[in-house]
């Protein structure tokens, strides 16, 4: 297994239909201990890339390879109402993947309760989740991803509805779980601070070239701290990203 190329995207092109191309000759690798963030303007094809990686659309050319034959993929989506089992309890929503890993019910319950605490969700395990806020539901999806020990995590704006304090905590918990066990993450976000706190590399996806404009290595040291975002080096990167996004949008 090639650790540095856990997810390997090689020269893929993605089309909507005959005439409309979304992604052109895109290549990047994600190592097994790496979090790769994609930032780009609306409609630049970020979600489409993720969709092709979870094998929901096949690229018109190029290949996507995983180091594992059949990796367990935790796919998180911003659309929390379509991601959770709204008619089920908090604990069922968080722990159901463990059922298919033959974890006994009492252990599942304990693990689930721990995750609820770790993510600072003040919820009772047996509460039905349909009344919960969007942020709480997204955290439940994240809890499920963390508990399932995935081989790969694919995240499409997983914290878009979560408040800052819970987001920072969630990012910290994710970091902790990655120190216990390596897995690659592909993360799409519109929030630059979030991307800087979570990622090792940031790919800036351009609407015009339909490819990365640039891939930035994130120099922030681990463990990540919110204060460190004020490093001058980081501020330069931030400005560069904002510049890029504005040039993409305002002609």
């Amino acid at each position, binding site marked *: 297994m090639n650790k540095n190329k856990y997810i390997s995207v090689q020269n893929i092109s993605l089309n909507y239909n005959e005439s409309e191309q979304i992604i052109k000759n895109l290549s990047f690798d994600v190592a097994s201990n790496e979090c790769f963030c994609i930032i780009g303007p609306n409609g630049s094809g970020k979600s489409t890339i993720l969709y092709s990686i979870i094998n929901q659309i096949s690229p018109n050319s190029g290949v996507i390879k995983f180091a594992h034959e059949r990796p367990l993929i935790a*796919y998180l989506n911003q659309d929390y109402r379509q991601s959770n*089992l709204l008619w089920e309890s908090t604990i069922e929503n968080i722990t*159901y993947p463990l*059922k298919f890993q033959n974890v006994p019910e009492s252990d599942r319950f304990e693990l689930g309760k721990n995750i609820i605490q770790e993510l600072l969700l003040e919820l009772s395990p047996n509460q039905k989740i*349909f009344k919960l806020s969007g942020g709480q539901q997204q955290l439940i999806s994240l809890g499920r991803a963390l508990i399932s020990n995935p081989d790969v995590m694919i995240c499409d704006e997983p914290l878009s509805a979560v408040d800052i304090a819970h987001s920072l905590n969630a990012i910290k918990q994710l970091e902790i779980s990655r120190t216990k066990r390596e897995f690659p993450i592909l993360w799409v976000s519109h929030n630059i601070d979030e991307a800087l706190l979570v990622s090792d590399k940031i790919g800036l996806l351009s609407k015009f070239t339909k490819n990365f404009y640039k891939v930035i290595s994130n120099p922030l040291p681990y463990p990540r701290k919110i204060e460190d975002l004020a490093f001058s080096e980081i501020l330069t990167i931030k400005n560069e990203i904002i510049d890029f996004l504005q040039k993409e949008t305002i002609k």
Partner: protein
Amino acid sequence: MNKLLKSILIFFFLSILLILIWEAIRNFGAFKKDLLPSSKEILFSLFKIIKTNKFWIDLLSSLERVFVGLLLACIVGIPLGIFISSSKYVKLVVEPAIDFLRSIPITSLYPVFVLTLGINNQGKIGMIFLGCVLIIILNTIIGFENKSKQRHLISKLYGASASYIFFKIIIPEALPNIATGIRVSIGYALIISTLTEMFMGATNGIGQSLMESYSVYNLSNMYGYIVILGCMGYLLNNIVSNFENKISEWKQR
């Protein structure tokens, strides 16, 4: 408790309103007065009817027909709906056919049921069954079609088993639509059971007693039975609506 009090109050005011409207039509309307008994007479007949043994037999046998017909429609309709929605091609062929059958006024099939199943309970329940089963099939199809692809996909990526996906994700997601089908059907079932009791040679049932009161020109009794049917429909619909709301609670936000 508050809710109960509220519905009792609503019921009370509604009854008074209905009585007022009835009396207004009776006194100032264009109909002959002896065709419309006074609300007092109707109420007296109503109480008299309720005290008879025949009424309880009627009520139970009418409810039995409604429930047996509906139950059979569910037992057949839900699995059939699941099967039809499971394949694009089956659906393409079968759904228009069911839509067409449903568009035939069920009353026009009355002779067909008399000829094939006879005038006993089979004929009546058969007609209720057909009236309901088509509605249930169509609503089941809708329920299974509106399922969220993403929810399905996410659980599949987590390695969820086919039975988990079916019983814990697909079925609960389709239940609200199935419940809607049952609610619409129960109104239908009551109409058909009344109709068949009135005309299909019944010996019991609210519809049969209604028809009998009519044929001996006991009008206050006749209206009494109509009021009873109204109450039955109202109560059944309310019970099923409550059940439907409970089941689709998760959808409503």
